[in-house]
């Protein structure tokens, strides 16, 4: 038994301060109670077989089958895409060559952020800036469940470069994060209860007050927040698109981005979107540099065509606009949508519960557990190196996809 340093791949905080107790190939966190880490490490691997039509087979046969399927497909969607930089690069190598479409598990929520970025831009910050500089932090409806240690490490840190003694933390939304209640004796925060629709009105009123100095009678909460904003030296606003009411989330995000831009006219403010589940930001960054476009891009015309509505996984599967879907998930057992009228492939971790329900299942390891890897943090700026710690011979997504591409090319 020994202890090792570990960089955790299971959320986009990519904490590298974790120590694991290692016994053969089982691992236990020594210094972290992060629920996501604990549950992720507990997953039992009963077998590592590939499957074709639910029947166990060897990996090379499964790869050959997948190569054949891609070759025969008229339109293939790669989605889920829960993978690392190398996995994304290997996928795009096929997607570009064989004129496929690419989306991600977080496509629905992340595309709301995309839309706002493409329309108005924004003013952003990274985690260390959040930790060290912000004297006011406003959190819009983000329970933090996707990033379990966000509050502990970055919102209520022990030390900051700027020796911030009195940080104002204001939570605006419907449900206060569990962390806040658990730690209410040692942290200070304020709560303004608002659902998505009222939040939108609230944001608009704040923006009106800042931009037009309206003198109409105001909600006390608005006056209170305006007072705080005026006293702020450096403020941050955090939000998570997936936790807003879906049909108006893009409008809310736009208002937040515009509010931050407005605030910078007289003080300093910046924002951070917390939509980062299943490493959508890593995938998106590689897509942007290799193709010029983010997720929800098709290569059917031989060049990239980006459309956040047209290339949504749900829409493509429901309308059978594709005949093959390749799901990739090297981190967890998130459920996938299976439409029996099209071919379904899952490149996933060996414990995935739907491995018998797809046409082809190919098991892969997890970045940072089974192979060295690079992933981007929630702020998109910092990329972290992750090291292999487990020896159970599970291939990586890029190893599988590079073989698949060879197979497709060979058959030509």
């Amino acid at each position: 038994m020994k202890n090792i340093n570990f960089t955790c791949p299971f959320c986009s905080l990519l904490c590298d301060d974790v120590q694991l107790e290692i016994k053969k190939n089982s691992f236990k966190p020594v210094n972290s109670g992060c629920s996501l880490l604990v549950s992720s490490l507990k997953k039992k691997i009963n077998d590592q077989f590939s499957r074709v039509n639910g029947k166990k087979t060897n990996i090379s046969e499964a790869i050959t089958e997948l190569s054949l399927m891609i070759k025969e497909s008229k339109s293939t969607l790669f989605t889920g895409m829960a993978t690392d930089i190398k996995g994304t690069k290997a996928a795009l190598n096929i997607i570009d060559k064989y004129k496929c479409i690419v989306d991600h598990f977080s496509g629905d929520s992340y595309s709301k952020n995309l839309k706002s970025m493409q329309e108005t831009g924004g003013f952003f910050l990274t985690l260390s800036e959040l930790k060290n500089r912000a004297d006011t932090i406003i959190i819009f409806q983000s329970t933090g469940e996707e990033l379990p240690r966000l509050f502990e490490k970055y919102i209520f840190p022990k030390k900051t470069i700027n020796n911030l003694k009195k940080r104002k933390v204001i939570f605006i939304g419907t449900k206060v994060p569990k962390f806040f209640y658990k730690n209410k004796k040692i942290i200070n925060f304020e709560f303004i209860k608002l659902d998505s629709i009222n939040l939108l009105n609230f944001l608009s009123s704040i923006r009106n007050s800042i931009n037009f100095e309206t003198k109409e009678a105001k909600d006390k909460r608005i006056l209170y927040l305006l007072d705080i904003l005026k006293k702020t030296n450096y403020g941050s606003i955090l939000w998570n698109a997936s936790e807003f009411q879906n049909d108006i989330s893009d409008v809310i995000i736009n208002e937040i981005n515009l509010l931050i831009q407005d605030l910078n006219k007289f003080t300093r403010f910046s924002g951070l979107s917390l939509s980062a589940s299943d490493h959508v930001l890593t995938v998106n960054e590689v897509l942007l540099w290799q193709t010029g476009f983010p997720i929800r891009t098709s290569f059917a015309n031989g060049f990239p065509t980006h459309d956040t509505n047209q290339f949504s996984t749900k829409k493509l599967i429901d309308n059978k606009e594709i005949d093959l879907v390749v799901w990739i998930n090297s981190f967890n057992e998130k459920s996938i949508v299976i439409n029996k009228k099209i071919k379904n492939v899952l490149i996933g971790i060996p414990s995935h519960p739907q491995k018998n329900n797809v046409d082809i299942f190919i098991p892969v390891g997890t970045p940072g557990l089974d192979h060295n890897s690079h992933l981007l943090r929630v702020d998109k700026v910092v990329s972290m190196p992750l090291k292999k710690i487990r020896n159970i011979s599970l291939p990586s997504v890029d190893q599988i996809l590079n073989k698949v591409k060879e197979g497709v090319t060979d058959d030509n």
Partner: protein
Amino acid sequence: MIIKLENARIYDPINKINGKVKDLYIKNQYIVDKPKSGEKISKKINLKNKIIMAGGIDIHSHIAGGKVNLARLLLPEEHREHLYPSSENLRSGSGLGTCSSFHIGYKYAKLGYCAVFEPAVLPSNARSAIIEMSDIPFVDKGTYTVLSNDDFLLNLIQKKISQKKINDYVAWILNSTKGLGIKIVNPGGINAFKFNQRALDLDEKNKKYGITPRSILKVLTKSLIDLKAPHPIHVHGCNLGVPGNVNTTIKQIKAVEGKPMHLTHIQYHSYDNKGDRKFSSGASLLAENINKQKNITCDVGQIMFGQTVTASADTMSQYKNHHFARPKKWICADIECDAGCGIVPFEYQDKNFVNSLQWAIGLELFLLIKDPWRIYLTTDHPNGAAFTAYPKLIKLLMDKSFRDGEFEKINKEAQKSSVLGNLKREYSLYDIAILTRAGPAKVLGLTNIGHLGIGAKANITVYNNKEDKEEMFENPFMVFKDGNLIVKNGKIQKVFNGKFYTAETDFDKKIEKEISSYFQKYMGRGMESFKIKNQELWDYGIETENIKCDRNDY
């Protein structure tokens, strides 16, 4: 295998060859001496009437990193306008100013460029920027790491820590981020903006640290000299884009007291504030200073008319300029206690007074700075224009009648404010070879590129000799990279990756104790996760070429 390129006219300023007809021999990726009799020449290529220069070197071009990706994210419309289909051996892609990675490599190769340097890599973003650059084929690459605004360094300077310790920190940063050089961006200003200071002149104090840009500039300039770094300090100074900033630029030149300094995109730092509009050309003033100060090198950052996007680590300046965004959207970011980033789309218009004068100022600088070895051709891609505008820019420098014709088209008031029409100088092919090859290689301390002497990499561009220099430079007849024919008549032949230059330097390892503790307390990750290891680069097929810090001509 030996390849002989025969009968071409050669322009190779490092070896003082000015248009002489001469044969070149390539063997194992390098240029070699004439083979001994009996040694077999496998291939002879007759290049009669053609012109040969070494592969081009772009000393300052924003080709990768978080800022470029943010610009791509912000501007899908630009990408939709410039779409590139995939083909048998090429990937698809899009964009011009923020072109996607593979096509940056294809486009540079087609222009005859073989080395490009990304000039603004933030320490915290270095790893992913370098991984991104591994998807830019053909060209050799390298980066300058941005310092001058990180809280750790400013704290050292505030405490008046010894120069030796600062040198250790700078060397540690170079090693950890795999940089070839160090770039200053608005020294102290990006940090000051985080404390809501909206401007910071050379002798103004940063609110938090109480230190001035001058002190940062001096300390870092000295550091690179003490370290014998391949490239002297690369400086994006204070007050970018501000009318009257030419005086600050001149003060900066004086501040380094004769020590080597590279001033980048000087066009944006050459503005005077005379005239009714309080905006005028400071090019003559700056050129006069640079002509006298032999320690100064510069690149221009020429603007060309049309749509582009500006991307910079200088959040203070970019925020100030966001009112000019076209289309009306912009992004800024405060980054990781080391710097920032700002993206503002821009359309330079030839009927607009300011834009016209910016265009003229850039050309004035090219024509008034006398020594071509100390001025290099850049558009600060994509800030002034995409690098694909280089052929037209070369024509403007080489052809006075064409230049005069273009000058006639710009805003009339700007014409009256510029001396450009009176400048008769025309660059020769030899001068262009200095501006785009020999000069950048020399200032970067790279001895195996930028020339065609024995032992140089066989990076060779063969041009058709055309009267129209834009046509000549935009479509080389042949381009060789490391001895391989990569482009022939505008068509890409074979795709592979170039090398990645890094500076190799030593430092007192004791500094890591302090840095490690700083990371532990404040940065949200450990120092070891910050340091880029060689193995990580090799995993992406990146081959490094380490340049020893032993420059002895400072």
